[in-house]
């Protein structure tokens, strides 16, 4: 464990709210609007932290625990990623299963909190979130499987660290398929455009936003920060696959990571600017397509 990794982790925590900001700014500029400032989410979070929290009388401790569990699971998950391109703060054999499990735990807590309000809107959003997750999770596992096969390492630190850099020359095609598949997953898991439209606030079209309708004040701030962090975590995954940074010196590797994260955010903004949201019935098809890519990457490694 190096100091660089910890510094990178702190920086990731600090810059995470800027990632959705860059996405929205790119989208606005490309569609001919000015858009909110890149740092808007920081202002929103500050405002929400100063506000009081309102709880409905039908909610129980499950609702209150939701945002805390969401954020905690994401922070622990971020400990498993090798941010400096070499080794993560926490690593063990099979930690990629833990990574997927922690993401699932966060989603589970969020969905339970949504259902706990007893509102039909939130129940609908929860059902959609889980439907999409049930397609997204196998894809994530297939991506990790292809990474395991191409690097021969069973921990995220290896899969995205030094062995990955060695695997690129011989398994480049397979790894780029994994990268594309992970990018589609990023869009789906974070409710970005082809899957969900975060700009709408009509309950009928949104997936993630509708679950958190009843959250307010600090709880909402935790959830908003959590979704920004989740977006950043998936961005880190995509960047780590495409740019193996083990060969660079520590600070340079960390710098490259955040540069890459910015590029990923711009790419998401680009997708949002040129695409419309898919019909809900078509979303599984997109995810099955992503799973197909990951499966193809796996098959290429197996032969």
């Amino acid at each position, binding site marked *: 464990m190096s100091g660089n990794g910890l510094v990178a982790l702190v920086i990731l925590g600090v810059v995470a709210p800027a990632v959705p900001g860059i996405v929205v700014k790119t989208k606005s500029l490309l569609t001919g609007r000015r858009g909110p400032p890149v740092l808007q989410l920081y202002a929103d979070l500050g405002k929400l932290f100063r506000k009081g929290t309102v709880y409905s009388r039908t909610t129980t401790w499950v609702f209150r625990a939701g945002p805390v569990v969401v954020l905690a699971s994401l922070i622990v998950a971020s400990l498993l990623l090798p941010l400096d391109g070499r080794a993560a703060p926490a690593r063990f054999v099979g930690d990629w299963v833990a990574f997927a499990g922690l993401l699932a735990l966060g989603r589970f807590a969020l969905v339970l909190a949504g259902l706990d309000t007893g509102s039909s809107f939130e129940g609908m959003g929860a059902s959609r979130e889980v439907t999409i997750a049930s397609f997204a999770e196998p894809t994530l596992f297939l991506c990790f499987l292809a990474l395991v096969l191409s690097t021969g390492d069973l921990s995220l630190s290896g899969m995205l660290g030094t062995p990955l850099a060695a695997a690129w020359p011989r398994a480049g*095609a397979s790894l780029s*398929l994994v990268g594309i598949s992970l990018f589609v997953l990023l869009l789906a898991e974070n409710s970005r455009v082809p899957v969900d439209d975060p700009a709408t606030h009509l309950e009928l079209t949104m997936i993630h936003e509708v679950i958190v309708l009843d959250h307010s004040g600090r709880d909402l701030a935790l959830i908003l920060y959590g979704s920004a962090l989740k977006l950043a975590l998936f961005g880190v995954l995509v960047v780590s696959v495409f740019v193996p940074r083990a060969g660079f010196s520590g600070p340079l590797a960390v710098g490259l990571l955040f540069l890459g994260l910015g590029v990923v955010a711009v790419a998401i903004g680009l997708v949002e600017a040129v695409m419309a949201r898919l019909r809900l019935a078509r979303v*599984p*098809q997109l995810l*099955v*397509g992503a*799973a*197909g*890519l990951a*499966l*193809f990457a796996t*098959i*290429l490694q*197996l*032969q």
Partner: protein
Amino acid sequence: MQNTAQVVLLLVVLTDLAILGTSRLSSCIRGLATQGLLLGLLPVLIAPQLSVHAVSLAVGTVAVKAVALPWFLAWAIREAAVRREVEPLIGFIASQLLGALALALAFAIASRLPLPAAQQPLLVPVSLATLMIGFIVLTTRRKALTQVVGYLILENGVYLFGLTQTESVPFLIELGVLLDIFVGVFIMGIVVFHINREFDSLDATRLTELTD
């Protein structure tokens, strides 16, 4: 060159999967044209040295598979005013999964086939996968035009398999095959046109009665 050929073969598989997943006929045809272009690049990339044979095969393939046939199919959908494949026999998600399965099967079979060692190890599995995916499109779609697309994908698979033997197949035979497909698709286009005029749709399942 071999690495570029590998990337091109992967892109061929991606176009296969894209055609399996789309319901819009125009994107099907665009996918087919892209595939034709990729197939045209292959003889040049695979050939050990640049020969007149490889280059003319490439030019012929691009002319027929990437320009003439897609243009003709595009004309046919404009004439028949069909846009989408509605309700295929097997849904788009299921057919994509079937395609992934075909892909796995192709790689499994290709590693067991008693073939002389090819210069390009991906060629045989990709050709088998394209063949099977062409079969899936051909058998599970209802519209006559999508079935033509399926037939062409199938033929692309055969073409890919033939590429393992480019050096030993006379050029004239390959040109003959290309011409054959062109004429075949031309006839299919005319049949499609007549189905459309007769039934006001391109649904091949309506062709159940035989009268004169």
